[in-house]
Each structure stands twice: as C-alpha cells, then as structure tokens.
C-alpha cells in the first residue's frame, strides 16, 4: 500500500510538472510564471529550461525529485526494515514542501488577460550549462533528504549492516550529485559571467558549499561506522547536512543575502522556510540527543586509519565553520549594527588554504601509516625533520604560495608513486576510488594555487587592427561585426592571440536582448591544459576603440579535469561498494 501511494504521489507531481512545461512550450503567457520567465522569441530548449529558472518552478522541480526518490526507495528497498520510518520522514518533508509550494509559490496562477509576449528568460540563464545546473543542484539537496531519512530510521531501529549499505549508497549518490552541481555552476561562472574566475566566495556559492562540506565529512565518517566508531558523530553529520541544505534554501529563496543568485524575495516565503528549518532542526536534533545514549561509539586508537579519519572530520568541520561564519556574519551586522557588509575572498582563502594543506598532510600521513606504527618510525621522523630543515633554509627565498606549490606537487608525486608501487607489486589497487579521489583533490589544490599565483589581467583600449603585447603573447583585435539572432542582437569581436608562432582565435560578444534590453557579455576563451586566454568585450569609446579586459588564466583546464576525476572517484566508490 505504502509503495503504491508513493508511486501515485510521484505520478501526480509528474503530471503537474508536465502541464507547466507544456504551457512554457506553448507560450501560454496567461500563466504569470510563464509570462515572467519566457518569451516567444526564446529557443525551444530555453523555453523548457525556463521551467526551473525562477523560484516557483525550481521548487516544484525539487519536490518532484524528492517524490521521485521516495518512489525509487520504495521500488528497490520495499523489504528493508528501515523503509517505514524513512518513508514517514520523507513524506513529512514532502508535506511541508507542498504546503509551501501551494500557499506561497504557486506557479499555476493566471492573468485574466492573455499578454502577447512574455518578459523573457533572464539572459544570464540562457546558457546550456545553467539549464542543467539547477536541476542537478536540487537533486543533490533532495538526495541528502533521503540520506537524512535513513539516519532517522537508524535512530529508531538501530544501525544494522543493511542500513549502512543503503546509507553509503545514498550518501555516495548525494555527494556525487552535489559535487557535480557545484562543478557545473563553477564552469558556468567562468564561461558565462565573464568575471574571469571560477569561484567567488559569493554567499550563495558558500551556502551550497556548507552541505557539501558536511556531506564530505559525513561520507568519510560512514567508512568505519560499521565498527561503531564515531557512530553518534556520523548521525550528527547526517542530520546537519540535511539541515544545512534547508538553511541554504531559506537563505537563497528569502533573499536575506544579496547575491547574483537571489530569487525575488517575498517575506512570507522567508518566514515559512525559516519555520520549516526550525521545525526540522529541533525535531531531528531533539531526537538525536534523546537517542544518542543508545548509540555506543568507540574512540579509535592513536595512529590508525580511523584516527586519521577523525582528524579529517575535524578539519572539514572547521572549514565548514569558517565558511558558515563568513557567509552569515553580514546578516548579523545588518541586523544588529544596521551595516551592510560583504566578506571578501581574502577572508576565506587565507583561513582555508592552511587547512587544505593539513588535509593533504593527512593524505600523506595515511600513506606512511605502516612506517609510523612499525619500528621504522624513528627513521621516518628523522627524514621528515631533515626535509623540513632543508626546506626551512630556502624559506626566506620563497614566497608562501611557491612553498605551497612545492608541497602540493610533492604530495602529488608521492600519492602517484604509492599507487604505482601498489599496482606493480600486487597487480591491483585495493581502494582505487580513495586513491583517485585524494589524488584529484591534491591536483585540484595544485591547480588552484597555480591559478592564484600566475594569472594576470589587464584592461586595454583597442581599435580593430590594433595589437598589444602582454605576458609574452600578442593580442590583436581582428574585427568587430554586428550580427542579429532571434532573441538578441550582438556585437561580435574577433581576436587572435599569437604566442611563439602559435595562433589562436577568440570570439567575444556583447549581446543586447530584444525584450527588456538587457546587455550581456559573452567571454572569448581559448583553453589549453596549462593556460587560458580570456577576453571580455567592454564599452565602445567615441573614437571607435573598445575597452577590453584581457586575462591569462593558469590551471583552469586542470581544475576542471581534477574535479571530473574526483567525480569519477565518487561514482566508482559508490557503485563498487554495491557490486553493481
């Protein structure tokens, strides 16, 4: 019976979504939501993705995903002991989300009159990457709700082998999905926003990072939880991850933080979501503390993999707290001191970078755990001391970033060598996903440092035909043309970059959208493994020259590659464990 109801719920929501999508495709502008987010000039693909381009539709999609995962759970795990409580938990969440949707964010409201055309989809959102970024993000949030429901089930029924297996599966899927969403958003920011970066420590980015960090700690804490190590800690992280994702919804959708991502705010939405957050927070944490006596946890012994894992969790939670404070502190100052404040990237990068180094040091320590335990310990400690002294002699010559780069590169080589040694001595790598995952995190750190240290930007004024020498390469503005498309007109600037006889062409555009007259810039990017040439077309001057922002960004491609490797590791780790 229960499983049938979950299918019915999913089917009904699917019909509702299909109905709304149909109105978008039919250009039925008598629907206020369609009118506000679409127009008849929009390409069909974007008419469809406009469905989730604003608050109402995106929330409906999130509910659809939640209902979908409920149905999948019932389909696959109907026999499991944990399913009744998991179902009840998800149904509880679903109920309040639907109330919220119906009473504060109904996408099916209509006008009495039929407008001839809509006000168009926000041009920044007219990008293939951004069309898929929101659904993936919502899926990530929603999957953590399922993980949460399993944790709650464990609190009532006890954590057994089966529950751990499914918990690891859902935690892995959620983690993978959320990471993918963050990567997609990051790629979009780099290619579409034209600010020349991939991560801005923008409040809404941070808000997504919070559940991700908690989820990362959670997934790691699950590894040894079957041996009852840190069981209650694992449960606490599972609950926190879900709560942070609701908190994220509240902050983004109530508009209390100003950001490129903010939806138009409506006070009643904020009040509802905040109440929802309070309800879930007190209910789940209350339950956690009342039941935590039953969760017998063991403390791991010193110098063991489990102990390293505890350290890893501590570092991740400290990073989480740093991001949490930095993101929410502006709200506090606005409320209590009536001051608008925004916390810059320096706060985050200067505090988090050392902690990332600590994480990498933990990866390395794990490699030498055997030596640390054996009687060769003294040899190892002595060699580390010698290496440190050796490095210290050069410290005065090197700046901290270079030192960091050397450290990370060293870590990269050590991890790679260890994996190779293991592979050639045993013809197999035991925990492939872990090694690959840790390797890609180190590679990611290396690329980010590279980008931070070597990237350069200048603002120049060029006429068609003009050239400029910058950082060993010549940039030439080849031509400027005006082109027309269905829903926008654009000024297209062609550039060429000449470096050691290698010529690359870049095209940057400035688009004027026909409805509402919004102007956007399309960046011109030419990528290679090591560096990107990045050109943004600015304003035209009276004398016919154009202002141009020209940057050389290092390591961007490596950042994408390492993130994709990380995703592979997560996916493989999740699938492998289940033998599918």
């Amino acid at each position, binding site marked *: 019976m229960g499983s049938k109801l979950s299918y019915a719920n999913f089917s009904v929501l699917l019909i509702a979504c299909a109905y709304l999508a149909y109105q978008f495709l039919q250009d039925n502008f008598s629907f206020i939501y369609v009118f506000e987010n679409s127009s008849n000039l929009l390409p069909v693909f974007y008419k469809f993705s406009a469905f989730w381009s604003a608050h109402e539709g995106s929330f409906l999609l999130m509910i659809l995903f939640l209902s979908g995962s409920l149905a999948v759970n019932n389909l696959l795990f109907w026999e499991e002991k944990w399913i009744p409580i998991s179902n009840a938990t998800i149904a509880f969440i679903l109920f309040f989300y639907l109330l919220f949707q119906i009473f504060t964010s109904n996408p099916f409201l209509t006008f009495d009159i039929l*407008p001839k055309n809509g006000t168009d989809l926000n041009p920044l959102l007219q990008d293939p990457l951004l069309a898929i970024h929101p659904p993936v993000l919502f899926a990530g949030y929603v999957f953590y709700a399922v993980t949460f429901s399993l944790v709650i089930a464990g609190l009532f029924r006890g954590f057994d082998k089966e529950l751990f297996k499914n918990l690891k599966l859902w935690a892995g899927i959620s983690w993978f999905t959320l990471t993918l969403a963050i990567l997609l958003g990051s790629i979009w920011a780099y290619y579409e926003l034209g600010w020349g970066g991939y991560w801005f420590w923008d409040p809404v980015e941070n808000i997504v990072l919070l559940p991700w960090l908690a989820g990362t700690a959670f997934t790691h804490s699950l590894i040894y939880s079957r041996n009852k190590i840190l069981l209650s800690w694992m449960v606490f992280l599972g609950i926190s991850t879900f709560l942070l994702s609701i908190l994220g919804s509240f902050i983004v959708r109530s508009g*209390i933080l100003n950001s490129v991502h903010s939806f138009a*705010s409506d006070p009643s939405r904020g009040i509802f979501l905040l109440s929802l957050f309070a309800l879930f927070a*007190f209910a789940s944490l209350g339950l956690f503390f009342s039941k*935590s006596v039953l969760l017998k946890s063991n403390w791991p012994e010193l110098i063991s993999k489990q102990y390293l894992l505890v350290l890893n969790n501590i570092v991740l939670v400290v990073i989480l707290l740093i991001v949490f404070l930095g993101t929410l502190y502006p709200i506090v100052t606005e409320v209590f001191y009536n001051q608008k404040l925004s916390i810059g990237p320096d706060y985050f990068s200067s505090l988090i970078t050392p902690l990332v180094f600590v994480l990498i040091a933990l990866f390395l320590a794990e490699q030498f755990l055997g030596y640390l335990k054996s009687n060769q310990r003294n040899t190892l400690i002595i060699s580390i001391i010698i290496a440190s002294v050796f490095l210290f002699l050069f410290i005065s010559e090197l700046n901290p970033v270079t030192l960091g780069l050397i450290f990370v590169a060293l870590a990269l080589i050590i991890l790679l060598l260890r994996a190779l040694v293991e592979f050639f001595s045993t013809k197999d790598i035991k925990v492939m996903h872990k090694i690959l995952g840790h390797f890609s995190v180190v590679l990611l750190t290396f690329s980010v440092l590279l980008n931070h240290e070597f990237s350069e930007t200048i603002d120049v004024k060029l006429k068609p035909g003009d050239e400029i020498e910058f950082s060993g390469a010549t940039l030439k503005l080849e031509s400027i043309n005006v082109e027309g498309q269905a829903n926008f007109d654009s000024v297209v600037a062609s550039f060429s970059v000449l470096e050691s006889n290698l010529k690359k062409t870049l095209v940057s555009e400035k688009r004027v959208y026909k409805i509402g007259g919004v102007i956007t810039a399309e960046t011109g990017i030419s990528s290679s493994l090591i560096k990107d040439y990045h050109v943004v077309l600015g304003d035209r001057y009276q004398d016919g020259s154009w202002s141009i922002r020209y940057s050389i960004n290092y390591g961007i491609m490596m950042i994408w590659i390492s993130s994709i490797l990380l995703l592979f590791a997560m996916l493989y780790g999740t699938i492998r464990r289940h033998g599918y």
Partner: protein
Amino acid sequence: MATRIFLVLIMAILVLMIATFSLSLVEKEEIALIENQEGKSLNIVDDLYDIEGNQIPLESLLEGKVLLNVWASWCITCLVEHPFLKSITQSKDVKLIGINYKDQSFNAEKYLLENGDPYIFSIYDLSGEFSLKLGVTGAPETFLLIDGVIVSHRIGEVNMEIWNEKFAQYF
C-alpha cells in the same frame, strides 16, 4: 555529560541563528519599501524626444497639472491599467504624458496602435536614464506634477481605487 554540553551548545546556536534570521526578515520588509518621490521637483538636464523622434518642449512638462505615466510594451501591468488611463483621459480634463520605458520604438508604436493611445505624447526613454532621475524603479509608475513638482507618486498599477486615494483630489 559531554553529550549534555554539546546539546546545550548546539541548541543555543540554533536559537541564536533562528532569532537572527527572524530579525533579518523583519528588517528586510522595512528596507523593501521603495522610496516615494513626492515633494521633489522635476529637474531635466538632457533634451527629450518622443517615440517618433520629435523633440519635446520642456514647458509641456513643467507647466500646470501633468500626469506622467511610465509604461512599456513588455510590461503586463501597464496593459492592465491601460483601459483605466484611457477612460480617465476621456472623462476628465487630464493632461496625460507617457514615458516609454526601456522599450523598442516599433514595439511601443505597435502597442499604442493596438490598445489605443491616451497619451498627448510619450517620452522615449530607451536607456531608462530619464526615468532613473525621476526615481522610477520599474513600470508602471504614475506621477502627478503640478508646475514641475511631484505632488503624488504611485508605484504600480493605477485603478479607480488608487485614483480616488491618490489623484482625484487634484482634479
């Protein structure tokens, strides 16, 4: 014991957080009020043109009672209030001047052709600069000027109710 301290700590953080957020929601509502421009006087620096490109004599804006209505062909609420504006110009002696806000001129002309033109003329404000100086935050907005001073300002749709409340006393 450790659990109890942890419990108190976590709950205290939660309560503080929720209290702060609630306060920020309340604050936000106050900030969200858009500033009304009543009492300010019109200050025109640049030349103004109508949709067809004719220059507009400034006296027409600065003398007597002038009802300024911000509209655009892409603005749905403007379409909603359009019949009311037509009826008010027909039934009362109202000098209604439009401000065509961030609109393409051919769309604007088509809009007036299809829905009727109650305006004496419409100031063509493609960039939105003139409207910005006036204090416009979006379309539609309606201003009543008496000798160049804003005496009444409506942000949003004008209908019979709003008219009686904000404008009728001057006519």
